[in-house]
């Protein structure tokens, strides 16, 4: 057995220093489309190219609704693409909803270093769930920040939902939410949980969990990388400021390239 102890020690510390410093390792994140100034013709072309209407035409160019982006890269690849793709600090993208301002949904000081999380997969493709699982691996190690996964809603302070909410998962999700003690918050993770993603609204999928549960924090991405989810958790705990999920081209500083 001692071989494992030695192995563990020799591996050293792998954990990221985020959120104290920003993580810059390559391959961390797929990045995000940037709301870009461009001509209306170009903008229209970009908008038709987007399969989930994440891009919206605007006066100044293309607005981006991050809730809908599924990382298909269609707006980013190819020679005729004026869309920019953000790769620096891009994972700090979790936003908040008006729900999160409710007084009785706020976590008090007792929760500042200990939040137990129930993860419910409401019907995703497995990528988001896998990224949530990565939070426990030595690279992200969310225990160091006081986040713990729990298998039962009775111990959970925070409900992390991934997936587009299928008909079959409505009852389990509702029961899980109801079984949680107050105060409780909901973090919706991934484009599917925010907007239905590629699955959209259908006879099986509800197009996101927002209409079904009071979501506090939204984490965009398909799937969001582990650090984005971690940022979402920190936002839910009130330890990081939220980002904007709808980004306007007119706010963009850069000129069309």
């Amino acid at each position, binding site marked *: 057995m001692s071989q494992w102890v030695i192995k563990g020690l020799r591996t050293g510390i792998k954990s990221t220093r985020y959120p104290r410093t920003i993580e810059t390792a390559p391959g961390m994140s797929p990045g995000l489309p940037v709301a870009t100034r461009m001509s209306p013709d170009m903008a229209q072309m970009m908008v038709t190219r987007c399969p989930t209407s994440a891009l919206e035409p605007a006066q100044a160019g293309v607005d981006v609704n991050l809730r809908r982006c599924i990382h298909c890269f269609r707006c980013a690849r190819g020679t005729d693409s004026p869309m920019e793709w953000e790769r620096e600090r891009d994972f700090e993208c979790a936003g908040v909803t008006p729900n999160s301002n409710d007084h009785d949904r706020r976590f008090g000081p007792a929760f500042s270093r200990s939040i137990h999380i129930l993860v419910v997969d409401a019907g995703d493709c497995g990528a988001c769930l896998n990224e949530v699982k990565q939070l426990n691996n030595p690279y992200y190690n969310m225990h160091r920040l006081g986040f713990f996964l729990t298998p*039962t*809603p*009775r111990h959970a302070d925070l409900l992390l939902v991934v997936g587009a909410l299928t008909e079959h998962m409505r*009852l*389990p*999700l509702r*029961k*899980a939410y*109801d*079984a949680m*003690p107050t105060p409780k918050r909901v973090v919706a993770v991934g484009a599917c949980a925010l907007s239905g993603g590629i699955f959209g609204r259908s006879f099986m999928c509800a197009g996101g969990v927002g209409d079904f549960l009071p979501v506090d924090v939204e984490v965009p991405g398909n799937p969001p990388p582990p650090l984005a989810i971690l940022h979402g958790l920190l936002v839910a705990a009130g330890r990081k400021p939220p980002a904007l999920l709808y980004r306007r081209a007119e706010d963009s500083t850069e000129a069309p390239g």
Partner: protein
Amino acid sequence: MTNMDLLLVVILGLCGAGIVLPLAVEERRIPMALGSLGVLASIALLCLSGVSLFGDVSFHASLWTIPSLATLTLSLDRLSALFLFVAGLVLLPGSIFASGNLSAYLGKYSLRTFCVAYFALFATLVLIPLSADALSFLMLWELMSILIYLLVNFEHELPEHTRAGYLMLAIGEAGTILIALAFIILARGGSLEFASMKAIGNAFGEQARWAVFLLAFFGFGVKAGLIPVNFWLPQAYTSAPRPFVPVLAGATLNLGLYGIVRVNGDLLPVATVGPGLVALIIGSVTALLGILYATTQSDLKTLLAHSSIENAGIITAAFGAGFIFVASNHPAIAAIAFAAAFYHMANHSIYKTLLFCATGTVDSSVGTRSIDRLGGLIKTMPLTAGFFLVGALSIAALPPFNGFVSEWLTLQAMLQSAELASTGVKIVFAICGAILALTAGLAVTCFVKAFAMAFLGMSRSESAAQAPRARVSAAVPMAFLAVLCFLLGVAPTYVIPVLDGAIAPIAHQALAADALVPPFFSRNIHHGELPAGFVADFHKLGAQIGQSVMPGRGLVVLHRGTAANPVVFAMSTSYMAVVLLLMLLGAYVVFRLIVARDRSVERRTVWDGGIRRLLPEMTYTGTGFSNPVRVIFEAVFRPTTVEDTRETVGKHFRAAIRRTRGENHVLDRLVLDPISDAALWVANGFARMHHGFLNAYVFYGLGALLAALLVARLA
């Protein structure tokens, strides 16, 4: 005529009335008559035995002499009085319970028969401990066997009851024969009276002593439920009708123990270590097997029956330890062992009667005793659940209830084997102590299962969900017994001196009370043997607290050792109960007033993983709960037939997985089956001789004649 004669006449008169009255009154009034007469007779019995037990009064009466055989004699010493008093404690609530439960049988079975047999048995139960000669003892013993058979087989239309009754009767008869043989040896002096048997005790040699011990031990062991002669017991207890089981379990089992003590402790006291070892080993193994089988039962009544075997085993083991200590000349430790045994016997009678009353109440309310079909009864039958819980806590030996005191004392007495010289005996003690400790642990498992699966969780059947509450006739006896469980648990220091009188003659020392319950309360303590420093140390611990309110010896049970080791063990359930209560109260107050002051408690349904409905069939069953025990002890249970019928449609579709687990009780496997196989083998041999040729029969005749001649010649 003394008061005691009068009381005895009253008891017997009431029993006589109980036998005659049913023939006169209407059948539907019989339960009432049974209840009132039973209560009166029990009270009289408690008075009679109480006078002797607390007042140290004995009683002796020669009734009439049967020429050339014996003088029928009745005698009441404190040993008899103890057993009678315990019987009274059982019969009093038992009679109320019986009267309440009897009317259910109205129209189906004859209540008259029940009542007649019940009071006849009542009288027999009173007279057996009183009889002081072998002839009346054996006659009464035989009468008791038959009466118990009649009562067990009360619901005679069910074939399994009849079968259980016959089995019990057959084994009981075998036991009586053994007992009779033991008395024949004891009566070598020519007299059948116990007093004269006792007088010639020294005349017996080693072999005769062994013979008497083994015959009496196993003969009485039949009624006491010791291996290997107890296979009738679970079946008989299960078959016995509801109104009778509490009395059967609480009173008749004790008579077997009484026989063992009377013969082996009093008439011909065990003088060597050997018989004590036999009792210790048989007792320990009985206890382990009893609790193992109890844990895996799913019928509450059968579970309790196996648990009776367990308790009989513990008591017998304590007796065995006592015998060994007596034989090794350690009377003080022997007295502790006997105190433990008697205490446990009384405790067992009380909590087992309580548990059987609660089970009977559940049975009558729900219509089943199968744990796998009960569940959630605490909501529909809260009172019964509470009383069952008290019984379960007591039998699982948890403080502050009575089982804890006696099991603790038993194990403490076993630990004193360190005082013994022989290493072999010490090893046996160590093994048996380990077995008993394991038994105690399994008993907790067993009764957690019994209580949790029957009373907590979801109702597993419609009738369990709508079970009516217990009636007064059931609640009153249960309450009485539950209070006794508590009192015997918190006030052992008041019980042990009472037991002392019964212990003294068999331990050859009357100091059990002084050894176990030092007089910390008495002001003139320095007249006792307690060294001043020792008393001062205990006073620092608060052993004298309460002396001004309660007269008596004190509230600490302890065993004093040598100067180098002044306290061997010490314990006070009274103080423990007070502390427990304070802690509970304190925790409640702290929680209510400080932690949860401005918080409300919300009740939500059970978290079920998000499925549509959590059904009772998805919750643990009693069988499932105890299955680990079954798996761990597979060598004992050895399930013989595991049928695994997979009905398949095509090759892999499955319609059903059917499994029937056939279990052959370890005693049946090792004892009964070889005997019956051998009997069948012999019978087959004889059958083969009967093949019908005339010549063959002539040859048999000739052969027999030759053999007879040969024997005569040789002799």
